[in-house]
């Protein structure tokens, strides 16, 4: 049964599918050489493609290789198998074509906010004055133009991450990599920044790969969610279990959390990451913390 051409979600996915591939990850594998010559395989046979201006999120349990994956994409770590192609050219090291926002705060503390945003522009050999006026535009985009002359230590955690986003975008990367950028923030700030990020993405022609362990965050932000799984009997390293398309219209609103389509996707991912376990059959013994005679039933 052909879908109605007026369905905006299906239409959107058709448009994305017609766009060129920006990032092509082929059979990627990565092993760490650990202590005593033992190797730890972090990733096993991971393949996916990201198309131009797509918003891709990667979820998975802790330790399944999400950070390793994004560090390889950024060129900060080297894969041991497969290949990573950006616009058809293999990735060999870090470069300004892949911007990165880290979980920790990585603003340069010795530079004011605007100088931080200017950093990438100056690395691209842009003159001071031009870099400055351009940096101010980016700060305006993340709503922090008023903090241009502040020091990073004078900003809140959420503001720092917004500046970090502006700094990464100012270098005009082809792709923006984000490794749990809102992981250290409280839920309210986090929600605000999620909305803010989508708003920025609407205004800027950039492809996003966003790592998170929060399923809600992954589904709400993304066009497509990659689910990474930890190693098991069949897979020696973290592996790609599924790529789930999120059938929600853009721009997203908070109210979409209640749509059946949202909940269906969310549940499916939840079941992949945390398969339901039968409840424990018997009551476990309770470890006593108090003196005898002080028990509760």
């Amino acid at each position, binding site marked *: 049964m052909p879908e109605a051409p007026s369905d905006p979600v299906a239409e959107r996915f058709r448009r994305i599918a017609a766009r060129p591939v920006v990032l092509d990850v082929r059979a990627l594998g990565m092993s760490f050489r650990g202590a005593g010559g033992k190797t730890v395989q972090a990733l096993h046979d991971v393949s996916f493609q990201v198309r131009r201006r797509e918003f891709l999120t990667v979820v998975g349990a802790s330790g399944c290789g999400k950070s390793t994956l994004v560090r390889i994409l950024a*060129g900060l770590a080297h894969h041991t198998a497969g290949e990573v192609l950006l616009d058809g050219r293999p990735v060999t090291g870090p470069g*300004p074509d892949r911007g990165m926002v880290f979980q920790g705060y*990585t603003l340069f*503390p010795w530079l004011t906010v605007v100088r931080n945003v200017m*950093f990438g522009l100056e690395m691209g050999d842009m003159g001071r004055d031009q870099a400055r*006026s351009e940096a101010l535009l980016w700060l305006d985009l993340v709503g922090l133009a008023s903090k241009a002359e502040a*020091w990073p230590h004078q900003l809140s955690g959420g503001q720092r991450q917004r500046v970090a986003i502006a700094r990464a975008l100012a270098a005009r990367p082809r792709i923006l990599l984000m490794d749990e950028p809102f992981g250290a923030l409280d839920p309210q700030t986090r929600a605000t920044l999620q909305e803010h990020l989508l708003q920025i993405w609407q205004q800027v022609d950039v492809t996003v790969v966003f790592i998170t362990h929060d399923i809600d965050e992954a589904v709400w932000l993304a066009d497509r969610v990659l689910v990474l799984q930890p190693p098991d009997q069949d897979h020696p390293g973290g592996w790609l279990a599924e790529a789930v398309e999120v059938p929600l219209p853009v721009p997203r609103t908070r109210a979409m959390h209640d749509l059946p389509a949202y909940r269906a996707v969310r549940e499916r991912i939840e079941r992949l990451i945390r398969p339901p376990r039968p409840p424990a059959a018997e009551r476990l013994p309770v470890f006593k913390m108090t003196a005898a005679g002080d028990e509760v039933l």
Partner: protein
Amino acid sequence: MVRSAWRVGGDPPARLSGVLWLGAFLLPLAAWCALSYLPWLWHPQVLIAEPGDSSFSAGMRIERAAFAAAVAEAARQGQRPPQGGRVNPVFLPAPHEVARALWTGFTTPPLRRGDPWLHQSLGHSITVIAWGFLISALVGVPLGVLCGSVPALSRLVEPFVDFIRYMPAPAFGALCVAVLGINDAPKVAIIVVGTFFQMVLVVANTTRQLDRGLVEAAQTLGASDKRLLTRVIVPGILPNLYTDMRILLGWAWTYLIVAELIGASSGISWYINQQGKYRAYDNVFAGIILIGLIGLVTDLVLGWIGRFLFPWSGQQVSRASALAFAAVTLPLRLPWLLLRLARRYDPKAARPQEPDHA
């Protein structure tokens, strides 16, 4: 409040901190005063004022037991007993004597003609330290930063540096004199040998402690290795580097004592030795205290300057301090300020191009 200040990790209020700072100096001084001015505390000797019929002579210092024995002996023989008062040994002068020596050290000419005055000795020492430390830092800091940033270089350089570090600097004394003659060159060389190798290791370590996230962030923004060094690593470690230098400067003074004993004698430690030979222990103390004072004042001044050098580290600076600093450094900053003003009136800089931002 007072209790929590003395707990592990306690936070003494600013007022108390000031009092503690003063106490750090006043307590030892009080102990010294007590030892010097309370005659029943210690004072193990007797200064003979009047020998009587004993074999002592006026001005001798006698152990108290021997003096008591002589007094008892005189009483038994019906002779005039020796008289005197309890004193400390000659090597522990009283605070006021040392204070006087500090004053007279600068105002009286040296005992032998041709010997340097105290301030000349002091000036000489400071010159030697300054040259030694400067040469050390000019090579040691860049090498340390490079070792801390480039692991391969660290593997190549640091084992040998570590090896030499364990050789005591004084061991190089004879060698330095043989190679560099007997004037100031071997003294400067001893300071360099004493501080350079430590400096390379300390700076390399400080460099390695820079947050890797900052370096990686810069790499993803397109920074080349050269720019990583000049724009990220060096500014990033600057506050810690500054502290390292303050500590290493203290070590330089330790090696000075050795340096001034080789070749032609000179400088403050030579002065101290010379006064020791004359048994002028008040002057000896004065010399030692002078070294301490110079070190303390240098460190306080450097610490004070440090608070202004790194405004981004979030240290609180009082308004009065900030004004004082601005006034003191105005001559240094004037050319820079003028340059900035000139740039502002540059017609090209005044109208930046509109970026073609999407």
